[in-house]
Every structure is written in C-alpha cells, then in structure tokens.
C-alpha cells in the first residue's frame, strides 16, 4: 500500500489519498471552491469548468478531475482563475432562464452564491429570499423591488417582512428586467409606481433609463 501524497493548496500542505482528485485536497485544506459537483448528473466529467485551478506553469486544470500527485502545488484564487471562472459563470447564466421569484430553489441556489462571490451581475434578490413563492410579498400586494435588485444581501429585508427597496442597485440584464416587469403587471401592480419606487435609490444609476425604456415596451 502506497502512502499518502502531499499537495500544497494555496500554500497549505495537506495529505490525501493518492487516488483522490485535486478537489478532495482543496476541500481538505478548507479552501472554498466554486463547482457544480452538486449537480453531478448535469455536469458530469469536468464539463462545468468552474473549479479551474492554476498549476505553477500557468496552466488551468479542473480540480474535480485532475489526479493528485506528490508535491503538486496549486493556487485556487489567482487573478487568472477568477477571471476565467467569472467569465464562464457569466456564460452559464446567460442561458439560464432567471425567474428567481418563481423558483422553488430559493435559499438553496448554488448559482447565487457563486455569482455573489465572483461579483457577477445578473441574479435578483429573490434568489436569496427565504419566502416561498406562495408567501411572496408581491402576492400579498406589497411592492417589493426584489425581482429587480441585485442579490448579495441575503435578502434581509424581505426575510424580516419588510420589503426590498433596492439599496444594492438594479440587475443590469435586460431580459431579467423584462420578465420582472411582466411579473409585476401580472400581479396587478402599476408599472409607473414600480419605477417611482426604484427612483428612490437608483435615480443616479445609468441603468434606470434603460428600465424606463423597457417599461414603455412591456
């Protein structure tokens, strides 16, 4: 029986089983990692490309499939890896139909955690809101700006029965804004009122003009 191998993850040395992959070593080192291994069936075989880590020679390899070897040295959060991961997640989100207000995943969403970590625009507060779609403030007639506001605050206001005022700024993706505004209309809100509420925090935000433009189209 061969002994364990030593791997250096961001400077921390860990000992792992020689048959394991890099991701195991990274987990053992206690380093948080972006990956879709939870959704194993969809992203089987190192295809989500989010757990890319950098080898000393500058090459990026997927941690979930790269076998460990003794003396292997990896860095998980270099500028290059973060840039590539951010861009990859952005591509992934581009084809994700974002309607978090109607999604059952709620606080369990991996995307929102990764997106906030990578400072990525595109996921509304609803994704973090613990309220079940049936208990949504909007369905009670309370004008909450959750569907239009950028996530990352853990949805503190809606969670404590206050409504979202949009203090984190708008989601700057047009398709989400269109869907969100349609949702407001379905629930019987006045679009003018929604924009007025949004102006409280976003009056200086360049994207507000775009939202106003969209309201005319909806």
């Amino acid at each position, binding site marked *: 029986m061969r002994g364990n191998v030593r791997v250096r993850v961001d400077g921390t040395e860990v000992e792992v089983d020689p048959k394991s992959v890099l991701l195991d070593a990274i987990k053992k080192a206690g380093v948080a990692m972006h990956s879709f291994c939870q959704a194993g069936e969809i992203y089987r*075989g190192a295809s989500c*490309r*989010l757990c890319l880590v950098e080898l000393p020679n500058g090459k990026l390899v*997927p941690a979930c499939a790269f*076998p460990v070897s003794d003396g292997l040295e990896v860095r998980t959060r270099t500028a290059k890896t973060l*840039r*590539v991961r951010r*861009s*990859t997640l952005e*591509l992934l989100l581009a084809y994700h139909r974002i309607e978090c207000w109607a999604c059952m995943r709620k606080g369990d969403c991996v995307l929102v955690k990764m997106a906030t970590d990578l400072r990525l625009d595109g996921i509304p507060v609803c994704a973090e809101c613990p309220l079940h779609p049936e208990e949504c403030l909007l369905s009670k007639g309370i004008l909450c700006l959750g569907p239009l506001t950028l996530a990352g605050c853990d949805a503190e206001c809606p969670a404590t029965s206050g409504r979202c005022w949009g203090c984190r700024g708008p989601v700057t993706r047009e398709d989400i804004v269109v869907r969100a505004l349609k949702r407001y209309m379905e629930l019987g809100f006045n679009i003018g009122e929604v924009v007025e509420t949004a102006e409280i925090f976003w009056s200086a935000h360049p994207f507000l003009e775009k939202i106003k433009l969209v309201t005319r189209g909806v």
Partner: protein
Amino acid sequence: MSWTLMDKCCPKCWHNPPSNPCPKYIECRIKGPLCHDSSECRKLRARRLNELMFGRHGIKVRVALASCTLAVGAADVYYAVQEFVRESGLAVDVDIVGCHGLDFIDPWIEVVKKGLPPAIYANVNPEEVSNIVSSYLSGDVSKAFAIKYRTGTAKGEFLVPTLDELEFWRKQVRLVGRNCGIINPESIEEYVARGGYLGLVRAIKKSPDEVIEEIRLAKLRGRGGAGFPTWIKWKAVKDQVSDVKYVVANAEEGDPSAFSNRLLIESDPFIVIEGMIIAGYVTGANKGYIFVGAEFDLAAERLKKAVEEARKYGLLGDNVLGSGFSFDVEVFQDAGRYTSGEETALLEEIEGKRSSPRVRPPYPVSRGLWGKPTVVNNVETLAHAAVIVREGWDRYATIGAEKSGGTKMVSVSGSVRRPGVYEVPIGTSVKTIIDGLAGGPPEGVKLKAIEVGGPAGGFLPASEMDVPLDYDELLKLGVAMGSGILIAIDEHKCIVDLVRQFMVFFVSESCGKCVPCRVGTREMLEILNRICCGEGGQEDLELLQELGETLKNASFCALGSGAPIPVLSTIRYFREEYLTHIREKRCPADTCPVSREVVRYEG
C-alpha cells in the same frame, strides 16, 4: 487472371501465411527469387514489373481518380477512355491512379507507351480523350502538360517541361507523398514494386527500442496539429504493462479546407497501414483501428481494400512475415463530426458512445480504447514513421527544421493560381509555399492575409508571410500549425465576415459538453454578427477578447480552446478592419450587410 507480383513464382516458394510465412517475402517480390535460383522466376518478375509500368501491351492510360479529380468530372473522363479503347480496338490498358495533389490540373490523365516519354495531360475533357490518346500514340506530346522524363523520340518533346523542371514540383520534397499520383491505390502490387513495405521489413528485424530511437533521432513530431514528439508517445505505450494495446490512426480530417490526409489515403492507403503495423510492432499492440471521417467514402473504401490485400499476403494477421508478431487493422468510419477528430472523442466513438472528449489525464497512452493503452496518431505521422524506418533516420533528419524533422503535406487553397497539396520540408517559409509553389494570387489581386491551420489556426497578415512553417515559430505569432492548411485571402474578402463564418462552424460543431465552448462560441458569434451588421460598439472588441481568453483557458478540449484563435489573431493583426465596421459603419471589402441597404423585418 494472369500472374501478379504478389503470387508465388513457382512451387518452390514456401510463403504460406499465417502458418508458414517467409520473412523475405517482400524483398523477394522485386529482387527475387531469393530462396532458389531460377532464370525463369526472375524473368517472370521482370516481365511483370514491366507490365506494371507500360501495361500488358506496351500502352497504358492512367486516369487519376480521387475525390479531388472526381469532383471535376474524372469519372466521365475514365468512361471516355474506356469507350475510346473499346471503339478503336487498340490494345491499351486502362488503369486508375491517385492524385499528385496538383488540384489545378484536375482531371488529368497519364499516357505511357514504351519508347515515348510518359505524358501527363491536364484539365482533360471527355470529348478530348480520343484526340489526346491518338496524337500521343502517333508520337506527338506537344499538347501535354508535362512529361515524366525525356526519351528524345517524340514530337514536341522539348516544348513540354518535365515534371522536375516545373518549379512547384521540383521544390517539393516528396517523402510520404512519393507514391501519390504514381501508383494505383487499389493495387498492393504497385506499392510493393516501388519499395513499399520495406520499412516494415526493416522494422521487424530490429528491436522495438531501436525503432523508437530511430524515430526520436529523426525528430518526428505529430502531424495532426499539436506537434507532440511521436517517440515519447510510442515509448509510453510500449512501457505500459497490458495484455491488450491498440493503435488508432486518426484520419478524421474535420477542418474545412483540409484535404492533405484525404489525398494521402486515397492515393496511397498502403503507407498508412505500413506505418500502423510498425507502430503496433513497436508498442506491442495487436489491433489497429483506422478512424476515417464520414465524408471520406472513397478513402475508406480504398483503405478497406488495402487492408484486405495486406491480410491476403500475410502482412496483416498472425505471425507477420514470420516475426511472431500479430497485428490486424479495422477501418472504422465515423458519423462525421468536427469533435470526432479529438483523440479521446474518437476513442469514445469507436467504443460506440457519443463522441465527446474525455477527461485527461489519464491520457490515452495509459488508458485509451476500452481502458487499454492506446497510441493515437495522425495518418500522416504514421506514414512518416514508415518512411523513416525505410529510408533511415539520418537521411530524414537532414530535411526539415532544427527541432522537427521531415516534411509536411500542406493543403493550399483560396486566392492562389495553383491550389493543391504540396509536401514541403518543415521550416519552409509560408511565402515560398504561397508564391513559389502555389503561384501566388491571380493577376491584379493583392493578398491581405494567410489563414494558417484552418478554423482553429489563425490569420497571418501578408507582411508576416516570411515566417517558417514550424510548430514553434507559428505559435510565437499566435497561430497554430493545425493540420497544415494555408488559405490565401485577398483584399476582396472581409476578415470579420470570414471569422464570423468560422464561428458559425464552431457553434454548429461544438459537442456541447463544456460551458465555455457551448455558450462562449454562441456569444462570440452574436457579437460578430452585430459587428457585421454595423451595430457593434467599441466595447465589443474587448468583450470578444475577454471571451476569447476564457475559451482558450477554460475549454475542455483543444477544439474549444482553438475556437477563439481566429478572432484573437485577427483582433491582433486586423484591428483596423474591425474598427472600420464599428466606427465608420463600413465594410472595407464590401461584403458585410453593414455596407448594404438591409430590409429589416420587425417582429
């Protein structure tokens, strides 16, 4: 059926594969008989060799039949020749032959008569056939495109150049393409008559380590595109402990405008099989697969025939030429996808799965086909290996560049006067190939760029044309050698539009496995569409570059990381052209929708 070179000359020949094969079978075919002395048997061979050259009656017409010539009507020419022979009642043999790779003379025929110089006729019409053949037989070769050598007996002989006098022929170094356009690709006899399978004979006399050493000293690097040293791959598989190993020849030439592998297989399938047997002997594999692209029907057919013939004469099967080593080859035709050309996707497909690339490591050399060690080589690499073993590494290594020896077959197309496949030493400058061999652009046209290595290669501006065609030198300029594609692009083509078309190709050919390639190519296409329609903004260029870097670094396989290279290399060299589209809303070549009145349909 008359006696062929591959048959026994007399009952004394004891070659009887697979139970009792003769190790000297191949040499015996042309130098023989070796085991007994008989003037009768020697005469038999000499007569047959003569017959192969000039036909049974002293006159032979060879019609080039390969995909390239068939596309311009060689089949009709072939029928016309047969018709002519039948009607005229002349004793003429009609034979088929592969293609030289000089695509501008297709369809061509070669007429040979004893005592006259063998003449090649270019761009033959079916109607002209009778005139050509009868005027040749009357001793007039003045209409020929070229002759093979001079005999001084024909009329107009000195008006016609010999092949060696033609610049684009003389400047080539034909090693693997030696038999292309010379032999009948469906007759193993002609291949053996020209020294075929002697490489195999030399290889099995040596130990596998000696052969690997020879390949190393010859500096052979993989011709599939990545340029990985072949000897390392072979040694790695040889060193693996496994009862079953495989050799896979990759003939899935997926890149648009790549046709050198196809030409090689269609004109000389035997050299590929010879290279495979050598690879099998060296690595200890007993089974080989030739992975042929779906669109290469003719190539697959000829390969199958060549495999059958090799089996029949004991060159494949148990106990190859008495060496105790067994090897068999199967031709596998795929479903035709760009990703199938990736070495692991190809293994998946042979196993019967969807052709998506596998996670590497483990590399195929340790866990390949059905989990067994596997050598995956491009067909041209294998052919080069056969040449090296036959000619010896010392001769081979003198040709080519410092770090990589030998030659490369390049497919030249686009705005050149002589498109075709040319075999040049590695390290020949791109300018020599485009201007010297392919004849440069047509009258009055200026070249703007050279597309090197196909869609996943990259664009070189005309000012950088002096770069040698070498793996490392090209990488320095941000383009990859790929499978040896050179497309000449003139001023009447829009670079942005070309890149956009390449991207359309990648979008439709992406296997969809990894996110960067599946979504990234789509997004890049959208941006390029926007620029071509005049709706692009300044920030789009940065966006393209960022996306390109992501694809390059994060893609699963080389096909995904190759997809952004045309975009990145054109942004590097042709930024102005992008900016003209974006700022001035104008296409310099006037081909994009941006410079036209476009009717838009709302909705």
